[in-house]
């Protein structure tokens, strides 16, 4: 059976693990939507995990497929989160009339006027995606054009996010400083405490995740995906075959940034707060860690890694607080040394792999 002749959809189903994971997410989606026994607390957890998984998928798209490691995806996540925060605050004021906390501690009279339009959800959505896109486009265009790559790119993105964090810490920047935004009262006209809100958000997050998985899958197995992999494997070669890799990289970078913004948009209402913490270099490194643990260059791996690490984090920080950092460090080192393709490889693992690790694992982009 020749790959070229088969339909895109048929080929999308080739990767069994991908299909299994996507179906699993879809099943959880159905359960979250319809199963009456699900507590709000559980729904919230599932929703958060889905946001993190979406964020990991976004990073995997550029790191796993295009070989560009960004240590600054927290920036785009934060853009989504902050826009969601502004929207929810404006909306809460519109619904309840209660002056939010941020007005108080920022010493304002009311929310800034220019936030007003964000009260409409479509505007907020467009703003979140638009800002993420524009920031990603400008930064990506400049960086890729001057061919900043590899470790340099990783470090620069980290610095950029760090700069954003420093700025957001300041009250004068105007987004709530270190406290960030909190005290959201209502979403789509419904008070946050009402039953079904947690569930609804979880369903939305899971649905976005499924959509992103399928979309990214289709994107990566097609011609565009092959060119991405080609960029990762040997960018100079690809350019010398007549391809403007700048455009390729820029396209996937922007898609990835927008996905991260969507994740942030969904995350803020579920946690109930958005603050500069999501811009800390640590979080951005952790996103890469999720991908690496699950299996880089495979969308399913990103989902598994993000869900696993965060579920462990949630439960261990509360039950065995002393253990968690050691578990995380151990997991990363284990994966780095023994499962270079991530935990997805656990079934295929043979002791010999240790000695010849690196045969056909996803490579870093050529510098």
């Amino acid at each position, binding site marked *: 059976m*020749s*790959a*070229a002749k088969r339909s895109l959809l048929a080929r999308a189903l080739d990767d069994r693990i991908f299909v299994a994971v996507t179906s699993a997410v879809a099943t959880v989606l159905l359960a979250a939507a319809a199963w009456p026994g699900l507590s709000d607390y559980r729904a919230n957890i599932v929703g958060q995990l889905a946001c993190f998984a979406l964020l990991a998928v976004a990073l995997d798209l550029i790191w796993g497929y295009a070989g560009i490691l960004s240590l600054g995806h927290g920036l785009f996540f934060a853009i989504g989160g902050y826009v969601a925060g502004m929207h929810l605050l404006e909306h809460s004021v519109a619904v309840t009339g209660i002056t939010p906390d941020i007005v108080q501690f920022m010493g304002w009279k009311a929310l800034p006027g220019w936030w007003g339009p964000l009260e409409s959800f479509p505007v907020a959505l467009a703003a979140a995606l638009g800002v993420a896109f524009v920031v990603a486009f400008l930064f990506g265009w400049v960086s890729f054009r001057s061919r900043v790559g590899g470790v340099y790119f990783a470090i620069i993105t980290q610095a950029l996010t760090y700069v954003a964090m420093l700025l957001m810490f300041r009250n004068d920047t105007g987004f709530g400083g270190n406290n960030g935004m909190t005290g959201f009262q209502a979403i789509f006209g419904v008070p946050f405490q009402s039953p079904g809100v947690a569930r609804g958000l979880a369903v939305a997050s899971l649905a976005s995740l499924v959509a992103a998985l399928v979309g990214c899958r289709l994107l990566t197995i097609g*011609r565009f995906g*092959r*060119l991405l*992999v*080609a960029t*990762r*494997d*040997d960018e*100079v*070669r*690809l*350019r*010398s*075959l*007549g*391809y*403007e*890799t700048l455009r390729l990289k820029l396209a996937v970078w922007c898609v990835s940034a927008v996905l991260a913004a969507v994740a942030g948009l969904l995350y803020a209402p579920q946690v109930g707060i958005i603050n500069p913490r999501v811009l800390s270099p640590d979080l951005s490194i952790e996103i890469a860690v999720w991908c690496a643990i699950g299996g880089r260059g495979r969308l399913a791996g990103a989902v598994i890694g993000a869900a696993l690490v965060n579920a462990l984090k949630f439960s261990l920080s509360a039950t065995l607080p002393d253990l968690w950092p050691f578990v995380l460090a151990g997991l990363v080192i284990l994966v780095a040394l023994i499962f270079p393709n991530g935990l997805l490889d656990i079934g295929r693992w043979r002791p010999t792999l240790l000695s010849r690790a690196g045969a*056909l694992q*996803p*490579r870093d982009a050529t510098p």
Partner: protein
Amino acid sequence: MTVAVLVEGLTVEFGRFRAIDDLSLAIDYGEVRAVIGPNGAGKTTLLDVISGVSRARTGRVLFDERLELTRTSEAAIARAGVRRKFQKPSVFEALTVRDNVEIGAGGARDAAARDRIAATLETVGLAAEADRLAGELAHGQKQWLEIAMVVVSEPKVLMLDEPVAGLTDEETERTAALVRRLRTPGRAIVVVEHDMDFVETIADRVTVLHEGRTLFEGSMARARADARVVDVYLGR
């Protein structure tokens, strides 16, 4: 007949090191030109400049007497029909052999393109390996795969950087046959190679570079007889 590649007064520097020093050179359509010389003579750098990978300090490189390559992007150069195989086999290891060649063909998916891809795979003897991952190929096969990727677009200028390095004698002979087959009146072929027997089999003319300058230009037989060439490169 126009000149395929015209190099005029070309100088390339890396830091304080002058890799190419005021070099001028003309390559005609229909010829197979071998560029030889000792390590560090500037051979690969010359190909780098023609393909747009490296930038010149001064001088110009004209393709087809119309396109100034020193100011054109790599991708545009390639699309204009100047293609190059790198010294180190450069294939996309995580893709299949067919995908690799398809990318080389510019992604056209019509019947003609498919036929051309199939034919190219046949030519380089990789038809049976079409669905394998390129990373799994042997070294020689990678060399041919890269040649296939370059050739499938039917370039007007074809540059091969050490196409037979690391190949067995039998593979080298097959490569030589391939190069001869690729020689057409509308195409210039530039080969950088250290294997003198191979060069002798394929090249119409040789250019011997030394320290970034042309030391000799002419037939291989005359090159072998040239005292300076023997001195700096071929040895006695």
